[in-house]
């Protein structure tokens, strides 16, 4: 180990950018190009895991790049929540790349070099968001992420893609410029700093109305969290190739949104202040409404990807709700839900893409009896659905558990019933798909044997499905990280997952 942790932190942001050069240079040779992408992805994963170990040993890792405007720095540091997000994203990038290789090739997509380049830039900005040390840095990478994913959404270059891209960019840019930027500047104006600090940066005697208004601006402004009424971009973005929908719109982009919400709630407002703000209650109900309405809309979608998209909108509502509950259980549930939902949803999207590639079907009504043709895919779909619903033996169980705890602790019984009701709705719109695939349909017509997706895609599906299961059986690391968000000292003391003896923790400043 010759690289210091600080170097690795910087590399995890720069590396994907460097990779774009490699991808561009090897663009003519698909094998080499994808090799470069994969190598970068694994290297990044290695860096992030090393950083994780560093964090466990209690080292405080931070990097200061430069001062963009007086008092406003581009700087990075590592804390548990960001670590969690970075781990998920960097783990799922290589998996998605494997999937994409299979998908893009068998689908004979055009402009694959551009695709991989934009993908790498998006990952780089996700890393920037995850490790951002202040709101300003986060905002910058947030915008870069929006712009770098635009070419991915419009990849097909058709009229539909253009329309989808227009909605995508229109909503994300409008909300971020109109509300988010205003909220950031107001925060800077009121608090005089934008550095993330546990417990918040506002004065304890700050004007509650002003802070409440800023909170509303934040929640509306972070359009990537897809809180209704600013959720339309997510279904619109589904015109993208499936790997993009999978990684970016189940993991990177939407999770960047809710991650930012969590960051703002915990590190800008602080949960103590959040609990007493007048607008919190209103926003909680808004998130609740978003959960319920999106689930209802999802039931009526026949296009599989559109149904998954609305399901995502609903699930993102859970995370926002958990953050706004302003209790430790809520925050924990939210952060765990980031991880469990990521694994569940990416699997579902992978399956949707596999069905499209192998059976050329995108409508749910056409998928009856498909289970006999694609048994592995459909089994994976079933398991991932369970995880989204939140029943054992899948990871989704834990996060929903803590979210429910949070609502009970704060005696928000209406919200609690919304969560329960929504879980029922999840069952209603997800489970019929695998059931019909396996048990109904004309048996004779689909007798053309097993015809699965390309091998590379199948491997990716299996990895993420296993992930869903592992998160149930072995949630300890996830639990530790989530628990440590509100109390960093817990991470080093728990020692359960730390392979090194605890005495290295002395270096903690």
């Amino acid at each position, binding site marked *: 180990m010759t690289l210091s942790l600080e170097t690795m932190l910087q590399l995890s942001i720069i590396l994907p950018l460097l990779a774009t050069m490699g991808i561009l240079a090897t663009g003519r040779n698909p094998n080499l190009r994808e090799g470069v992408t994969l190598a970068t992805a694994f290297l990044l994963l290695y860096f992030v895991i090393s950083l994780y170990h560093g964090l466990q040993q209690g080292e405080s890792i931070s990097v200061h790049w430069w001062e*963009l405007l007086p008092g406003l720095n581009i700087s990075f540091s590592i804390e548990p929540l960001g670590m969690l997000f970075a781990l998920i994203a960097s783990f799922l990038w290589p998996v998605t790349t494997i999937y994409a290789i299979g998908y893009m090739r068998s689908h004979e997509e055009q402009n694959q070099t551009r695709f991989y380049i934009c993908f790498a830039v998006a990952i780089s900005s996700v890393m920037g968001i995850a490790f951002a040390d202040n709101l300003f840095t986060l905002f910058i990478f947030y*915008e870069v992420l929006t712009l770098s994913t635009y070419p991915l959404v*419009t990849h097909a270059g058709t009229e539909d*893609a253009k329309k989808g891209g227009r909605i995508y960019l229109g909503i994300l840019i*409008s909300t971020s*410029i109109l509300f988010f930027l205003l909220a950031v500047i107001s925060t800077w104006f009121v608090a005089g700093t934008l550095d993330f600090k546990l417990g918040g940066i506002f004065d304890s005697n700050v004007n509650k109305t002003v802070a409440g208004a800023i909170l509303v601006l934040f929640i509306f402004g972070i359009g990537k969290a897809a809180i209704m009424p600013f959720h339309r971009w997510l279904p619109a973005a589904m015109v993208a190739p499936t790997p993009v929908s999978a990684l970016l719109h189940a993991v990177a982009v939407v999770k960047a949104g809710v991650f930012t919400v969590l960051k703002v709630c915990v590190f800008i407002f602080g949960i103590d202040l959040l609990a007493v703000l007048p607008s919190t209650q209103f926003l909680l109900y808004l998130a609740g409404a978003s959960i319920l309405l999106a689930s209802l809309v999802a039931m009526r979608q026949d296009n599989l990807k559109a149904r998954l998209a609305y399901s995502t909108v609903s699930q993102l509502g859970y995370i926002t709700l958990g953050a706004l509950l302003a209790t430790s259980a809520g925050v924990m549930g939210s952060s765990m839900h980031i991880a469990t939902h990521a694994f569940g949803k990416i699997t579902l999207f992978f399956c949707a893409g596999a069905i499209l590639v192998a059976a050329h079907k995108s409508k749910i009504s056409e998928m009856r009896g498909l289970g006999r043709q694609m048994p592995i895919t459909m089994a994976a779909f079933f398991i991932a659905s369970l995880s989204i619903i939140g029943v054992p033996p899948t990871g989704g169980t834990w996060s929903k558990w803590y979210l429910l705890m949070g609502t009970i602790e704060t005696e928000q019984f209406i919200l609690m019933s919304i969560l329960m009701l929504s879980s029922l709705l999840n069952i209603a719109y997800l489970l019929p798909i695998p059931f019909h695939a396996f048990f109904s349909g004309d048996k004779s017509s689909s007798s053309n044997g097993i015809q699965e997706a390309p091998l590379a895609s199948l491997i990716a599906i299996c990895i993420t499905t296993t992930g869903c299961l592992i998160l149930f059986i072995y949630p300890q690391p996830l639990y530790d990280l989530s628990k440590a968000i509100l109390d960093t000292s817990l991470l080093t003391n728990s020692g359960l997952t730390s392979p090194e003896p605890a005495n290295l923790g002395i270096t903690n400043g």
Partner: protein
Amino acid sequence: MAAPLCLFLTRPRLVWLFALIVSALAFLFSSILLEQVMTSGTIIYELGGWDAPWGIEYRIDQLNAFLLLIISAISTIVLFAADTSIRKEIPEDKHTHFYTLYLLSLAAMLGIVATGDAFNIFVFLEISSLSAYALIALGKDRRALWASYQYLIMGTIGATFILIGIGLMYQMTGTLNIDDLSRRLPEVAQTRTVFTAFAFVIVGICLKLAMFPLHLWLPNSYAYAPSIVSAFFAATATKVAIYLLIRFTFSVFGLSFSFTHLPLQLLFVTLGLVGIFVASTAAIYQSNVKHLFAYSSIAQIGYMIVGFSLTSVAGLTATLLHVFNHALMKGALFLALAAVMYRIGSTQLSQFQGLGRQMPLTMAAIVVGGLSLIGVPLTVGFVSKWYLVLAVLENGWWPVAVLILLGSLLAVVYVWRIVETAYFKPALAGSETIKEAPLTFLIPIWTLVLANIYFGIDTRLSVQVAQAAAQSLFGVSP
């Protein structure tokens, strides 16, 4: 700084080289000047050796030095591409005229900014305007003549107003030196003559500035002028007018006079905002990209006016920053348009179809420039927007802050119209031969584009200078 020498050189290539060298030297000197001013304060140079109140003096403080730097830098970069572009757009025998006029115009703009004498300002203003009329009239399109004529009429009215204002001031104070004026005007501030003078000067400048209700001359003159001229003027001409506005309200009349006796603040902030919205909306409906960016310029002037009307150090800093940043954006955008003009002979939006693939570098430049206009982080546009909104919040005008941000959403719309046309529509039939612009275009375009990004990331130079200039203006006129 002037160079009528050009006339003697008949070989076009030589003239170009000469102009380029002159402009580059001007750039060099203004960088040195800025450096000196920042370290040692105001520099005064007395023309002809006469003492200040009698002779004409050149007075360089942070504000002038900043503007000098912007103008000469843009001029140099634009000139770099001039040779290639002009060959295509202007007949061979007029090249010498072109460069002569160009240098005259450059010299006059630098003169306006540098001089410390009110009448001298008027003289330089006339020189720059006259050469501008002629430059615009050189445009290939016959409509250029009409545009030039429009500009001539409006410009002359503006200049006359300024002259009347200056005349009235001279009548009241007996001096034309700006420094002197600022000392003597307060004594007679309450007279009707001074009010009249103020009104004439401000209206005259606003005409030159193309501030919202007085903007009608601008779109056509930018659109039909030779591309290089559009690039040069779009990046510099209105900046000079902004400078005059600041100079007259702050240095000459003084802050307390300008803003307490007249409802100027309310007037400017309203006109600025209305300008942003009207011009941005107009930009959305243009079918010629040059027109589109011309309207966007008017909208950007609206931002500067809003910042200016805040009458705070922060507001003025934002305005000055935007002057600098907007010069970078519009310089890059209009140069890229010049490259498009060079290759396809038109800047109609419909002709942009498929250009994303045929001229990737030029189009990428337009995209980055456009992002900068919108104010996306890591571009200069973001820096100005940040300062402007912050300054507005400082005054407690949060509805204005919302409106400013709404205005930038309109920019998203008009920029994206270009992006969608260039990248999503198939190339027009028969346009397969279109190639990327030659290097003489790409180098200056990308110099400006990279400057857009560089100064969006490393803001020390622009912010420091703008802040210093704003502070010194408030220091001069408390």
